[in-house]
């Protein structure tokens, strides 16, 4: 199982170590540093590294490498999932997951890590159980603690630990009972030069925020559940009912959680909300090139496209860009070679255009690779797959909760080739 954990920042400083079995010298990380150097970009460090006596499994989140050491055969996905869980827990506790915040809360971090794993076996990873065991820091609590001398460690066994619904604690009470669901869909797509879809799929999630007293038993149903053939559920969802009735029946955790995620595959026709007309070319001589990009609406279902951003990764030889944007602002970063064009709202009457010249390093040959465009966008009040929630029913409690559903579509990995 998981033997040790090292946290390493982007600069290669090891700033926290935790061992769940015997202590392993931090020199084992030298193998990691070697791989890190070889990979050049931090994103490209291979997730599993073999060393003579151990395996290092690592993830890269928020500019921190979470490097775990294992000594026996352990499913790598188990380790990677767990490392992500650690990062999420930090996020949940401290509002962000950064080196500074971890250092600032080092004792709580240490207590958390101790509570999450025992001898390398996961112990408590549900946020609500952890919060009963170790209270998250708040300014108010640390003041109260200082005055009253009480501690931020729970004295009793968390109620959820052993029940068959470990995700919910007993005795939850709210004055306003409410349940909100966000249907968030991301379009992953690759469009080729001519604008034809090479590949497109939708990654959807339903995020929930449920603040309800007692033990509510909820049932969520859809107008068109047949859209969903590839789903992953939060452990609270009763799979049998989904199988037989295509409804989502569950006793929710308290607070924010992800109810389900789904995937609408490339085989279904995925609507593409915008089109991009682009022409980026470099001249054989003269060390320069031209760029011309226009974005327009395609299948938006009558909604407005907002927060439109175009990012272009330029070849290394591009020194600067002298462009003219009819809408929004652009910025070319000569260090990262990224051209960022922030358009904002898409106006179908007057299509935004970015045009001008690029200057290259003098004497450099015409670049061999083609730059690639990435699109970011957002459409409110629309789930691009057409998924619609029908109704939410509650059983088990007497009160009438307030219910709400919100839809939003975003661009995920949305790429246009040139």
């Amino acid at each position, binding site marked *: 199982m998981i033997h040790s954990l090292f946290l390493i920042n982007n600069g290669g400083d090891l700033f926290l170590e935790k061992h*769940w079995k015997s202590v392993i010298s931090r020199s084992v990380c030298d193998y990691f540093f070697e791989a890190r150097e070889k990979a050049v970009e931090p994103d490209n460090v291979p997730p599993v590294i073999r060393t003579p006596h151990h395996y290092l499994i690592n993830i890269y989140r928020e500019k921190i490498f979470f490097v775990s050491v294992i000594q026996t*055969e352990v499913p790598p996905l188990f380790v990677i999932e767990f490392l992500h869980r650690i990062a999420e827990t930090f996020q949940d506790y401290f509002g962000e997951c950064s080196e500074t915040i971890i250092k600032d809360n*080092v004792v709580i971090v240490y207590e958390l890590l101790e509570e999450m794993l025992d*001898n390398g076996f996961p112990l408590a990873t549900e946020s609500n159980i952890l919060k009963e065991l170790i209270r998250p820091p708040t300014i108010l609590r640390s003041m109260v603690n200082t005055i009253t001398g009480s*501690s931020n460690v729970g004295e009793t066994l968390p109620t959820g630990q052993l029940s068959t619904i470990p995700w919910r604690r007993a005795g939850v009470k709210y004055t306003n009972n409410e349940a909100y669901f966000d249907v968030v869909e991301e379009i992953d797509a690759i469009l080729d030069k001519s604008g034809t879809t*090479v590949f497109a799929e939708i990654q959807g999630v339903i995020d929930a925020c449920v603040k309800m007293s007692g033990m509510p038993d909820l049932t969520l149903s859809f107008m068109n559940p047949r859209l969903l053939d590839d789903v992953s559920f939060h452990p609270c969802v009763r*799979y049998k009912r989904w199988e037989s009735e295509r409804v989502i029946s569950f006793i929710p955790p308290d607070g924010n959680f992800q109810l389900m995620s789904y995937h609408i595959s490339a085989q279904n026709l995925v609507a593409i909300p915008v089109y991009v007309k682009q022409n980026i070319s470099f001249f054989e001589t003269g060390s320069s090139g031209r760029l011309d990009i226009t974005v327009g609406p395609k299948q938006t279902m009558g909604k407005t496209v907002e927060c439109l951003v175009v990012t272009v990764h330029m070849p290394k030889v591009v020194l600067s860009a002298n462009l003219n944007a009819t809408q929004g602002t652009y910025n070319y970063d000569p260090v990262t070679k990224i051209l960022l064009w922030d358009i904002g709202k898409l106006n179908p009457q007057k299509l935004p255009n970015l045009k001008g010249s690029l200057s290259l390093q003098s004497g450099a040959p015409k670049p061999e690779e083609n730059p690639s465009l990435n699109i970011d966008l957002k459409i409110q009040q629309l789930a691009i797959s057409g998924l619609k929630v029908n109704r939410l029913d509650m059983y088990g409690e007497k009160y009438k909760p307030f219910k709400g559903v919100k839809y939003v579509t975003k661009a995920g*990995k949305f790429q246009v080739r040139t």
Partner: protein
Amino acid sequence: MTDSKYFTTTKKGEIFELKAELNSDKKEKKKEAVKKVIASMTVGKDVSALFPDVVNCMQTDNLELKKLVYLYLMNYAKSQPDMAIMAVNTFVKDCEDPNPLIRALAVRTMGCIRVDKITEYLCEPLRKCLKDEDPYVRKTAAVCVAKLHDINAQLVEDQGFLDTLKDLISDSNPMVVANAVAALSEIAESHPNSNLLDLNPQTINKLLTALNECTEWGQIFILDCLANYTPRDDRESQSICERVTPRLSHANSAVVLSAVKVLMKFMEMLPKDLDYYGTLLKKLAPPLVTLLSAEPELQYVALRNINLIVQKRPEILKHEMKVFFVKYNDPIYVKLEKLDIMIRLASQANIAQVLAELKEYATEVDVDFVRKAVRAIGRCAIKVEQSAERCVSTLLDLIQTKVNYVVQEAIVVIKDIFRKYPNKYESVIATLCENLDSLDEPEARAAMIWIVGEYAERIDNADELLESFLEGFHDESTQVQLQLLTAIVKLFLKKPTETQELVQQVLSLATQDSDNPDLRDRGYIYWRLLSTDPVAAKEVVLAEKPLISEETDLIEPTLLEELICHIGTLASVYHKPPSAFVEGSRGVQHRRIPPRAGSVESAESPEVGQSGSSEAPPAVIPSQGDLLGDLLNLDLAPPTATVPSVQPSMQMGAMDLLGGGLDSLMGDESDTLGGDIGGSPSMGAGLGAAPTVMPAALGGAPAVGGGLGDLFDLGGGVGMPTGFYVVPKTLWLPAMKAKGLEISGTFARRGGIIQMDMSLTNKAMSVMTDFAIQFNRNSFGMAPAGPLQVLTPLSPNQTIDVSLPLSTNGPVMKMEPLNNLQVAVKNNIDVFYFSCQFPLSLLFVEDGKMERQVFLATWKDIPNDNEAQFQIKDVHLNSDAASNKLQGSNIFTIAKRTVEGQDMLYQSIKLTNSIWVLAEMRVQTGNPNYTLSIKCRAPEVCQFVYQCYEMVLKN
């Protein structure tokens, strides 16, 4: 207010100040001080000096303070074992606390203190906690057993904790069950042979019930455990599958992959015509695709596993090609994996799409990725015949880009395409030749030279092209030199008139000016061949080549099956057998997919249990093996045994007679000059006949290199003590299983030294270097006494013989069978594994002659139960001859008695590990059957000693 304040130091000295605060009367101050200590500890500062002061804070009812002290204890107890004892009382007391949280915390912490003295005190509290009324305490205690086992395995067994742990599998609480399974699995890993987790239908049922109710991590443990079970029949298999399927929709990807493993394994047992089988296949695709939308690290592991799954069952994902399309911002490790899977899924239906994608990738930034994309186009051409034409034109387009590394990669793959589809795409040669000058990588140069040589008759200026390469001959890499040599010889055979000078030049460069033995050898062979029998030379050098196929990239089927049973593990990420992993922790447990119901069971069953080595008769890999090297093979084996004395004179003769050979080739071909050369007719004939002999020699490996054994055998006449009997070499590692490396070998004992004689043959297309060898622990501690001496790189189709001296001082582990030896051989390409069995006589030492008195006493002393009797049939030797023969193998006759026409031979043997074996052999004159009684304190060796008798006496 943040914890960073704990890091600040004051002038007085941190430790001193902390000490004062730890001993403060105020609770709050104490707690703050402990926090400071912990903070220092996390950044690796040594605060062990504060041990007594911190431990004093342990007796508290403040839970946070207690936890902090425990954290400290776990870290430092090891370095202060005597002090740690101070804490024991508090632990024992806490284990009785009414609050289950405290009880669990105490037993959990105690298990983490890795100090022997403490473990003794741990047993009683642990026993109680394992039976605690509160499941939270029980589940914590279950993990504690695994911890204790890690520190002191014997103690855990003696105290019977393993049985208690097994009982917990039937616990009413699913979390307890999951933890018990996890703990048992971890313990079982260090005890490969124990059947801690003996699964039967009842326990399986309990596990499946717990599966629905435990946490996501518990589900992983249970699923991994289920995967080890072999269902009794297809109905049980189906019912397990049905209950596991819902896990495919879990949000945790590790749960999903473990479920996939169980299903992939168990569906093998389902009859294919069952409706459920089809349903299951359909259900597997969506979760696998979903894994690809997760974080890149998860994607990587998923992709490595999907790579296995598509090789085993391509039908699952055949419609999902698009999800493997590479995205611009995928990390490089994801890109490369996706590319690999794209090729595996490529078929006639989707090839157009795939090619368009690959062409797109060839313009990306990352050089490694671009190269692989170009190579992928070539692999597609070889895999999907209908697409070959399109692939070639795509490659030509890419060559037009003139991007240096793209051009070189393209030429390398075009060579392979030529080998798959000869005489089809030669029209592109002209384009290739235009790029000759830009090639600077050996592989690309070699490929280009091969093409020129192969199609010399269609390239007008082939001689000029090759000549241009020849100028810098000595600066080229071996690969290019060898290829150049061959190409020029081909050219010469095709256009003898114009190229005589060129061929002489290259032959002299290769034979006289080169230090590389491979090159020299090959040069000599051509030289001789051309000079003695040009017609044969033509037949050999220009013979039809076997076509290559795409199978070279596939994982070998037995390994694939094993890996399928290990989906989701490290083994599946590295595509290597699990036994190759994580040192020392496990014995080899081969897992096999159970046979399908309804298949002819009786025929299959004996095979299932066997280890991988005995399968698949060795065969020459169709795709690999360059024609040239085949010659080398021939040269090595048969002639040495038949005409050993001819060789030296031949070599000299051949040199100056080349001219004659050339004449004959150019002039009247019927005039055979070879007849004049001393001894060479036989040689020439041998080579001339070669192509027909070759397959037989390769297929029946024992024939190759068996000469040594034969010679020994000749000497073994009657009446003389003979040498150690050496079994002819047998094939240990077929080239199929080792990416072209073939190893055959045998064992010998020479002058008291054990030697492992091996013939290494390179049947791949590239040079092999960096050989090394290692043994797994074995019954008699055999280990290499020195490194594997392969000094020169092994060129394609070359064979070398090596003798590896062995010692018997290595680590010992009992193997099954006793004389089994597991070997790992490494070269620059990969690590390969095989197992072989050595004759026990290898271990019979020279000073194995026992004193008569001692013999008598020992014989009486060994209980009769240990005596084993065997019959040795059909031996036509008298007792003296037999005795002499046996002595050659260090089986010593101490006394001989003749009773009623029956000779009784009393013999002793000593093994390297000082085990004595005593034997009585009865020989009746005229009766070819001997009776052998063997006595030994370690009776398990008797069987193998008997085998040695059989072997020695019958050979």
